């Protein structure tokens, strides 16, 4: 089986977010980048399945400039076999999805896996868009993922319960919480890092697709007024404030 997994290059979850150029650009100074947490979860699951005996070739795909390569190498060091980078600035989602759909078409992959959402632009749109470009079935935010022969067994959290699903290849899925049941972080060791340097990382140029969305300005949330402290021996005061001042009870 050949899996194509989208690896996002995103700011570390503890990053302090700042903007430059009159709040039109994300300020990358001092930002540490990581593999998107949901993509890392998905990759960990694929590696677990492979370790447990599923025959699998894992290719990562990233739409991004050369700056994303350390993140891609990390995915290779975790255990992915090879990588494709589409050499373009990742901005508009339809553009990104189109690029990934093209990579899929040019290889003989059986499945595309993305994270449920990127933690920077919080789109959560990729898997649906990629699937639609390829006219393939998809499931978003799967909370369980198993492969049994030529069947894919999935679960999805829905209103009021859990939906169990069955699908076959080729298929597109995005990973939500639970995708990897007991995620043991795969921290690459020295050997992993050394071999990752030699694994193939193919750079391809993007296909044309006009961007239909554009971010024109960023804002930071309004600074909150200081927290009002309430004496633990006077909890009635909290009840009063929630009712009269905040008007939430």
């Amino acid at each position, binding site marked *: 089986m050949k899996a194509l997994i989208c690896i996002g290059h995103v700011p570390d979850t503890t990053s302090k977010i700042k903007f430059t150029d009159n709040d039109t650009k994300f300020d990358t100074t001092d930002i540490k980048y990581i593999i998107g947490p949901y993509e890392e979860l998905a990759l960990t699951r694929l590696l677990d399945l492979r370790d447990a005996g599923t025959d699998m070739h894992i290719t990562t795909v990233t739409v991004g400039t050369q700056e994303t390569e350390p993140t891609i190498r990390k995915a290779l060091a975790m255990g992915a076999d090879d990588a494709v980078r589409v050499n373009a600035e990742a901005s508009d989602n339809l553009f990104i999805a189109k690029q990934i759909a093209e990579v899929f078409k040019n290889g003989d992959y059986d499945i595309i896996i993305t994270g449920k959402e990127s*933690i920077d632009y919080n789109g959560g*749109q990729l898997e649906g*868009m990629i699937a639609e470009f390829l006219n393939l*079935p998809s499931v978003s935010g799967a909370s369980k993922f198993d492969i049994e022969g030529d069947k894919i067994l999935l679960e999805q959290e829905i209103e*009021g319960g859990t*939906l*169990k699903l069955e699908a076959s290849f080729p298929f597109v899925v995005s990973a939500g919480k639970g995708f990897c049941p007991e995620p043991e972080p795969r921290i690459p060791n020295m050997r992993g890092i050394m071999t990752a340097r030699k694994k193939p990382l193919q750079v391809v140029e993007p296909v044309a697709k006009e961007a239909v969305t554009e971010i024109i300005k960023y804002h930071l949330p309004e600074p909150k007024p200081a927290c009002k402290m309430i004496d633990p021996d006077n*909890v009635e005061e909290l009840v009063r404030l929630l009712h009269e001042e905040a008007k939430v009870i």
Partner: protein
Amino acid sequence: MAILIYTQNYDGKFKKSVFELVTYGVAVAKELGTKVTAVTTGKPDTEILKELGKYGAEKVISITNEELNDFSAQAYAYATEQVAKKINADLIIFGNNPYGRAIAPRLSVKLNAGLAAGVTALPSSVSPFTVKKRVFSGKAFADVVIKSETKIITLNQNSYKVEENPVDITIEEFSAEIPEGAYAVKPVEIVKSSGKMSVTDAEILVSGGRGLKGPENWGMIEEMAEILGAGTSCSRPVSDLDWRPHEEHVGQTGKVVAPNLYIAIGISGAIQHLAGVNGSKVMVVINTDPEAPFFEAADYGIIGDAFEVVPKLNEAFKKFKAEN
């Protein structure tokens, strides 16, 4: 010009979040000088469909296909596309929920329509069409311009106040053409959950963290939720340790919530936790450690031991509820 609103019903009923979408859509329609049409599936009763008129939808298209009783993102995208084309929709609005997240991206490809996901306010401009959306997990917002002729947005829950605006509503039935192969994903079984209020629907959430020491101490949390008619949620370690079910986990890697009131008890307020709750209108923190980062984010705080403060607070809430 027309606005189409995707209104999901659950077992034939609409939830408050749908009325929020309609209210929002009507406000945008005013700006654009147009009207709002809703679309739904599963043939809810006429009386239920009419509820959408109470919030200002002038028309609802009820898709009658039996096969849509099972969800398939592909099939739903086909059906919604046909309705959008039929009414010449130039703006399509979904809730930022599992249905919206599954259908909207596919529709965006079908209609080559720019999609802004996780919108939190009315458009700041209709030409160019500019909306505000949540980015960097709530640490910032971005103004996004959608340039395509047809536009799609998904609205974050609890970001717009529901308001009644009664109009006469026309109900129209519609049978969509759904190609074979749109049901490639087969539902096998639905496992019902506890039936408790889902964390994303709750208007008040009482949330517990590792500071509560163990699952046996959740009685007072549930009691508070009961008194306030609230839902319960928790931090990640709490669900990782199986003290609480996974559907209660909120934060960057859990559910993103935006209740009117979020009460955090024994939660330190790590940045990844706050990323899932920073959209709450009002936040209260109860923590023994005055240095806990949650105090920086909260509106009201009590420095104290949860095991002493919470029982007292429950009594005070009870007294308040009895009097109001």
